[in-house]
Structure formats: C-alpha cells, structure tokens
C-alpha cells in the first residue's frame, strides 16, 4: 500500500505534536505552580519600607507594629500613627519619611500592596497560631532579611494541610505541638 503524506501526518506527526504540547503543558504547569501561587511575588510598595532594617538590624518586635496578631484574625498592617511614634523625631530628613509624614498629615491611608492572601472563603486566624508559639517566619519566611517583602511559601489549602498534618516535622522548634484540625469548618464556614 502506498504511503501517503496524510498517513505520515496522522501516524507520526500528529502524535508527536500532541505529545510535545501535552508534555510542555504539564512541565510548565508544575514548574510555574509556585509562581502562580504567588511565591516570589514582591511588588513595589508606596513607601520603600525595609523589614531588614527595622525587624532585623534594629530588632523591633513584630508585634510592635502588627498589633492584631495575638488578638484576632488579622495581624494588621500598622496604621500610620504607629510609624509616627518614632518618625516624628527620627530620620525626618529622609525622602521616604517625608512621604510618610505627608500621608500622616493629610490623613490619607497608605495603599500598601497586598502580598500574602488566603481566599475569602478561608477564615484564617493569626492569633491561634501565634499563641501556640508558631513563629512568623514559619509561614512568611525570613522577613528579617528582606529589604522588600516577598512571598516565600505557598498559601494554598495543600500548604495549610501539610503543616496541620505533620506539625512536628514542619515546626521542629516547638516541643509540644498537636496536629492542627483538618475538618472543613475549621477554616471554611
């Protein structure tokens, strides 16, 4: 039987093309998974604030600014009046502080770019985690070394459950730690 061009296309070219397409899709899907989940996201902020300087070098306690973290669901981005506790006197001549002071005096809030986010159907509570002794770094990465904050870990349900199921492995610094709850209404309601 005569081999036609069509035969060749159907038997060799088509499966090959399909395989390449599928393979590259799967490959891209897995490689880009972390990025699609926001890992490495590090947007420019309206004020060039450095956690490395404040939390790292000057070792200011996280809760000096993130006042809600022990009390409620949200850690809270500090309101400008907290910044002004120090910056009414310190480094008033720096350009970023001038910007900050301007925000404060005009009474407009600072539109920080959001970096970490769980979907709104998940009700994450900071306080229960922090009060159990889990350190901020366990989820947010080594903030003390970041000039500009970026997302280090995934914030997916899989990531939550990984830690809830294997708390000992993920939080080796905690001697007494139970597994976290795994039922639906622990987070969704």
């Amino acid at each position, binding site marked *: 039987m005569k081999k036609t061009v069509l035969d060749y296309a159907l038997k060799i070219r088509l499966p090959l093309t399909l395989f390449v397409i599928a393979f590259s899709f799967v490959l891209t899907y897995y490689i880009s998974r972390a990025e699609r989940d926001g890992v490495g*996201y590090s947007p420019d902020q309206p004020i060039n604030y450095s956690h490395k300087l404040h939390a790292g070098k000057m070792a200011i306690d996280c809760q000096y600014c993130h006042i809600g973290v022990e009390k409620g669901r949200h850690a809270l981005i500090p309101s400008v009046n907290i910044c002004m506790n120090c910056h009414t006197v310190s480094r008033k001549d720096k350009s970023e502080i001038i910007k900050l002071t301007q925000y404060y005096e005009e*009474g407009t*809030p600072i539109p920080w770019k959001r970096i970490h986010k769980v979907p709104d*159907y998940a009700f994450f509570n900071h306080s229960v985690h922090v009060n159990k002794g889990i350190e901020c770094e366990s989820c947010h990465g080594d903030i003390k070394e970041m000039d500009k904050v970026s997302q280090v870990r995934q914030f997916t349900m899989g990531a939550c459950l990984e830690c809830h199921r294997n708390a000992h492995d993920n939080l080796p610094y905690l001697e007494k730690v139970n597994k976290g709850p795994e039922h639906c209404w622990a987070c969704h309601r």
Partner: protein
Amino acid sequence: MNDSSKTNNVLWKSIEGLNNDPNIQKMKEDEFLDGVTEDFHPNQLSGISRRKFLALLSASAAITATACTDYQDKGEIIPYNKRPQEVLPGTENLYASTCNGCSLSCGILVKTREGRPIKIDGNPDHPINEGKICTKGQASILNLYDPERLKEPLFNNRKISWNDVDKNIIEVLESAVQKGKEIAILTGELTSPTTKKVFDKFSEKYPTTKIYSYSTINQSTRSKAWFECYGSYEFPSIKFDEANVILAIDSDFLVNEDSYLENMRLFTKRREVVGKTDFNRLYVAEGRMSATGMMADYRIRVSPDEQYNFVMSLVNELSKKGSNIEFDPVTKSMVSSFSINNFSKKIGKEKLNYLIDDLNKSRGKSIVYAGSTLSKEVHLAVNLLNEVLGNSNLYNYLNESVVILPQSSREDFDRLIDSMKNGNVDVLIHFGSDPVFYLPYDFEYQSSISRVKTVISLSESLNESCSLSHYVLPLNNQLECWGDSFVQTGVYGLQQPVISPIFNTRQKESILLTWISGSSSNFSSDNYHKFLIENFTQTVYTKLNSFSDAKRVWLSSLHDGVVTLKNVEKLHKKISQSWIPLLKLAKENSGLTVHLTESYFIGDGYFANNGWLQEVPHPITKVTWDNYAALSPLTAKKFNLKNDDIIEVSVSNSKIKIPVFVQPGLSDKTINIEYGYGRKVIGDVGKDIGINPLQLISKNHFETKNILTNASINKIDGTHKLVTTQEHHSLDDTFVKDFHKIRKIIQEGTVEKYQKDPKFLHEHKHELFSITNEHTYSGNKWAMAIDLNKCTSCAACVASCNVENNIPVVGKDQVGKGREMHWIRIDRYFSGSPEDPIASNQPMLCQHCDNAPCENVCPVNATNHSPDGLNQMVYNRCVGTRYCSNNCPYKVRRYNFFDFRDHFADEYYQNNLTALVNNPEVTVRSRGVMEKCTFCVQRIMDVRSTAINEGREISPNEVVTACQQACPTNAITFGDANNPDSNVAKLRNHNLTYHVLEELNIKPNVTYIAKLRNTHSEDNS
C-alpha cells in the same frame, strides 16, 4: 394505649391536610413543589434588563482589564491612617443602646465590626428585657442599610441644602408666631423625656405651637381605666411569675403586646421542667387565635365584643364565693345583672367550671389580664375582677408605666383639623410620624393638609405623609442617634450612635434645636448630644447621689446603656367604684366583629420595608408577605369561602377588600385582620403588600379602639394567592400514612401525668442498635436542647439567625415555590377539632445527626462530619445535586435556586450599602449551593480561638448560638454534650427528652423536651 399517642392520633398541620386534600398529598409526595424545577426555560426568562446589560458590560471590561495586568496582583491592603483606639479590625465591639423600634424601648447591645453595626441583641444589664430582643428588634438592623432611605433634604421633591431648609423654616415659624397662627407638631408615642424637653423649649420659643401624639399601638384604654379606678394614669407591670393562674382576655401578652419580652420571661419561669414542676395555668379567652392562645392550657373562644359581659359575669360569679373588697350597693346590683349562664353554653360547662374553680382557689395568686386592643370598659371590669380576687399584690408598682406625652384625644384632632381647614394652621410638622396613614380616614386629614402653608415631614424613609409635604427632611436611623428613654419607673435607658450618619441626615431633635436657636448657623452636629448630657445631669444625675462627678457618671451610664433609679413602691390604693353605675350589660351584637391587631413582625407598618420581617412566617398561619381576614372554619363554610377568596368587609361606611384565610380556633363571630400592611408610599419591598385595614377605623372608634362590631362580609369575584409555608418542608413520607401520628414528632404530656410517672415518655421505647461500630467523640461534641414548654413561637430565633448567617430575602413568589431560605423554622401542629384546636410548636433546624443521612448521598463529599459532631456543609465543594435535601428526614436543607440577592426585587439588596449588613464571619452563598444551619460554627470557632489564646479549655456553656441568644424564654440551650457540667448535657438526660424520628437511628443532636400541659387530667384535654 398511652395518652401522648392519643393526642398524636389527631395531629394535623392545616385544614387541607386534615381533610386529605389531594394537592397537599401531592406536595408531600414530591420533593419540590409544582413548577419549581420547570421554570428554567431560557426563552421564558425575561430579557436582559438595562442594569444587567451594564453589569455584564462592565464585568467583561473588567476581565479584559485584569488579563492585561499582573496576574499575581492581590490588590491593596489599606490600614487606618490614625486607628481609633477601640477599633481593632477583625474583632467586634459591643455598644449598649436603646431600641426605637416600638415604644417598649428595650436595651440593646449593638455588635459592630470595623465601625459598622452588624447585629442587634438585647442588653443583658437592662432590667426589663434582660438581654433579649424581639423579632423586629433583631431584623431592624436592615433598616439602617435600606437602599431607599431618604438621603438628602427635599423641598417640593428637589434637593435643598440643610442650611436653606433651616433658614426658610425659621422664617416661616417666626411669621406664624407673629400672625398668631398655629404650629402643629404631630408625633408618635414619645418615650424620651429629653425629647419632651425639646418640645417644651420649642413651645417656649414659638408660643403658638401645639403638640399632638398618636400611635395605633398604645395603652390608652388601659391607662384611662386605671385612672378611673385608682386615680393615676400610670399602671403597674404585672408579676406574672407569681401567678398560679393567669386568665388572658384577648391579650397577646406573651408575644406581641405590652411588655412582652418581660412577660415571656416571667411567665416561663413557671414552665421550668428542671427541678420542681411548679407550673402556672394559663387560660386564654379570645376571639382570634393568638400566639399566646397557642400557649394556653385552656383556650376559651369568646368574641372580643362579648368580653365585657364575660368578665363581668365572672365578677358576679366569683364575688358570690367571697370578695376581697366591699361592693357598694349600686355596684352589687349592677354586677348581679351579669349572668354566666349565657357563656356556659357557648364555652362548655367543664372549661368554665375549671376556670371559676381555679380563680377561686388561687385568690391572691392569680391574675386576669386584658389586651390593649380592648375597650376601656373591659379594662375596668378586669381591674374589678382582680380586686374581687385580691390579686392586687401581683401588681408591680416598682415598674409603673410612664406617660411622657398622653395620646391626643379625638377632640384634639377634631380641633386641629378644623383649624387646618380654616387656614389657622401655618406650619405642620410630622415629627417622625405618619398621620396620613394612621389617622382614621373620616378626620379628613389628608384633604385638609393642602390648606396648611408649610408642611414638614421628618422621616427616615418616604411615607404617605411625606408625599403631601413641602419639606421632607431625612432622619438618622436609630443606630445613628443619641437619645434616652423612660417608659417604666426606675429604668432610664440611654441611646448612643454606633455609626456616624451614612447619608446627609440629621437627628430629629437636633433639627428642632436648630430651629429653636433661631439661626441656621447655630447648627452643630452635637447640639442634641450636649442637650442630652445637660438634661441627664439635671434630672438623672441629681437623683443618683453619686460621689463621682457628672461626666464620669454620664460616661459609665452610657457604657451600661441603662440607669436603674431607686424607686419607692407606692401603696396600693383602694379601687374606686364610682364608675360602676355607668356600666351596663353590653348589647349582644348579631353581626360579625372585626378585631384589628398589630402585625407580629412589621409592627404598625414601620417595618413594612424590611424584607427579613416580611418573610418571617406568621406564628400561627405561617403566611408570609401578606395580611388577610382570618375566619373560623364554620363562618367560612357559612359564607361559602375558602382560602384565597376575596371578601369585602364593611363596617358602617367603610369597606375593604381582603383575601380570606380560614383559621382554626377562631370564634365564629370574629374576623381577625392584622394592620401595618397596605402601605402605599414606602420602599419597593413593602409597597402594596397586603391590605390596609386601618381604613375601617372611623373616628367614632377612637375610644373602642380596634374592635369593630356589626361588620358584614360578602364574597366578591377573584382570588388572591396567600403564600403560607405551613405545608412546606413537611416531615412526611408517602409510604407511611399519617406520619406525624405514627412517628411521634410531637410528644406531649400533662403535668399531673409527669408528676405521677416521670418516665412516662419512655414507656414504649425500643432498644435501637446499629450493625456498624459507633464513632466515638473524644473532644467536644456540640448539641442543642429545645424546651418545647417555653417556645412561644415568637420567631426571634428565625430573625436572629437571618442576621447572623447572612440569609437572603427571596420574595413572595419564591416562598410560594417552597424556596424560603430560613435555616430554622417553627413547625406548628394542631390537634383536636378544627373549631377548637390545641396547638403545638416545634422549632426545627439541622439536627446535626451523628449518622447523618445527607452525608452518605453526597456524590462530592460536600457535606460530611467534623470531629466535634457537626454536620459540615462546604459550599465550594457543593455542585447542587440536592440529593442531601432529598435524603434529609427533617427537611431542613435549603438550596440556593438563585443568587437571591441578585434575584430579589431587581437586585434590591444587591448594593454596596446593604452589603454592609453581612456578617463578615460567614460566607455569602451564591447560586447553586446547598446550605443549612451550622450551629453557628463561626461562634464556636471564635470561642475556641479565645480559649486557645488564653490557654484554657472551652467552658461548658461558653458557646452561645444566635438563636439561643435571641430566644426570649431561653428555650434553646446549646453546649458541649461531652461535658457533664454543661446545661445541654444535663437536659439530654432529662426524663422528658425525646428526639424527633429517633427510630431511624440517625442519632440527631437536637434534643426536644416534651411539652407538659397543665390541664386538670392526666390526659390532654
């Protein structure tokens, strides 16, 4: 056969059900009502509306725009600039205030999140309502976020600035005074002494001012009767908890009349099954069927126009057996002309003898209480009867009613309208009132209003009076207001704003204060606040004898929301008998009697635009979104009427056309119509809902109030579909005939039986076993217990659940298809004959069964069980097969056939303003998912996180669900069944507990406490 099963043998839900109506049978066979699954033909749907088209357009634009931006972008996070010290985002704040929903002025606690109010509950420190608030109060939060609130001041329907308003009106007021023309202020019932003071100042500044007060819900007949008997308009409250026998005369004192939250609490203190069963006995003599009537141990059908004769013949009968007071000779002869024999035929000798016997035996420990819709004569007779029985020691003089501004009389209004017609009234101010809707039609108020030069309406939303006014001035909602209240002696309530005015509105007192100041520039937003503090310092602070300074006392009082003033109990006065000779045997009326009662949920019409309240099913008939003329089955038969027929009700010269609802238990002479409906000028939700029966009241009825005798009815063509949820979500099974009877959904007994044999309920219990191993719950296990002895079917739980759990309003057409979304419903069953039924109520909600049948049929595992015993529902997993609802024996699962916020009344509640009412702790469900009661999992998780944060265990009764918090009688108990110290664990082991459909062995976690009736026999009568 045991007795409880005997009662159950005749359990029925509606007359149609009792008569085996084929439609009802079909309804029970089918999972969904007719037409529910068939209306999804795309070509039958309405075309895309302009709004929808624009929404689609902007959505597609938004999608395109997002595609071009950074896909990792998560938006902005915007903290406060200067954070208010008390606001911590994500945590709630509670503020004590006072409710303005009606004249009871209950203390409330408003829950706010990030500065916006999201829930109203009762203030536990308030001595009258003790932490509870009624259905209306619960749902009133929606009024704050009503999209059709007035937002700007209007002059002849055009926007105008407040400054111009003040300037113009001050000019008008001054010129009126100069010309000596009257300035009339019409207000509703006044509860605030400080507002009264503002009125006084206003009259001082503008001396031609006259103030009129009128409200359809009032205590004027009770108050006047009290005056004639004891020389004081201020009547005491009643110690219902000390009464062994209570006779309610056409009074809904437990659910919708007078100080009902307090009454309910006191009454159910004597319905406690834990410990000694020291039950009171409730007799209700009424023409209509009220929620209080459903609670009665003995219900006696007496038409309201016969009540006077009835009470007087009781006086006669009981005074023969001895009297606590000496009768004057005139009184004696008067009283003896009333004979009980007329009634023993109608009521039945047995019931009447029980009543007379009980009242006689519990002299000094019983109370007779008349409804506030009854005429003065009945109240006089009731006062006399209580004196004959020596019941005056149950009067609580420590908490007397306070009259701040008495109701204006008929003569006052006649005078006002005459001067309006003669052009002697220059300015008319509707001070938050709506006289065009409420005043009797033949005052001709509406037509005389055009003769007044300037008409000013102060209102929160448009009403009938606004449409005839020159100036329409928008008012603050109650949650944006300062204020105080003094409705019972000894209790002074304070009201504080919990949110700053959302729109360009002002507080009504503040508007008057600006006009008093004489210049528009004198307005400041805190003028009434200052005035209130000043008045507090002068009048309340001085009485407190406090060592702290006035400011500190003010702030601490504001924090508590209520100040308890020391009060000296007045001595009981002797009853005057001078009024008795004026009274004669009331004439027997041959015609029908119309009894107008206030709507249970929308009040006098103030709440008509509140979708949540319109949709709460009526406690007895379960009708939503309508009012109707309730007729007894016999009367309906006589006139050849059935449900939904339209009749014309005529009383003297006025007529209304209204649909019929056949109501078992009504007296054959009575037509019961609820008012508050039929508003013509109001928001889209309440407009033209129902019929306004106030049109029947003429000014001649100003004294006799809501009882209209000699009415006639005739059937007219056409029908109006009334939507009732009564037969929806029935616990039924086509294969089991007479399901309720066999499956013992309602189990009851009598006090006598229970005392003889506490375990009578469990006599015929079967041992249940399971072929699989039982799951053990090692940690918490959440469970609920509902005490049916205490449930009055007031539906506060339903409203509270709606607010807490973001339950949408679906509208009348959707309720008609059985698509109401309430997570908790109150099932009402009747037993006995349709003429004189016995009612049983049962709140029904998700039972969180241990072996939940819904769980194993879900193909996607969207509903499953949590380790703490909750039946979880995961919205994101749900694909909407509705198998779970099909398999649920209790029929408590609700399916979102639409995104109801989008679907109801052309997206009425789908806007940025109304979105603020949503509880941020609960997901707002969209179309296509199943939902149901969660046992308020958000509250469980909140308590749990607090316990974790504080490093302790959850204490036994720490979690309080929304329905439990709202329940005025504490019929609902919630807690950890695994903790033996919790109330719920104790109740689960009580002798009277049972589970509904226990024999399915699905192990429900809602335990019911069987109702005991305090009748004279071991049998339910």
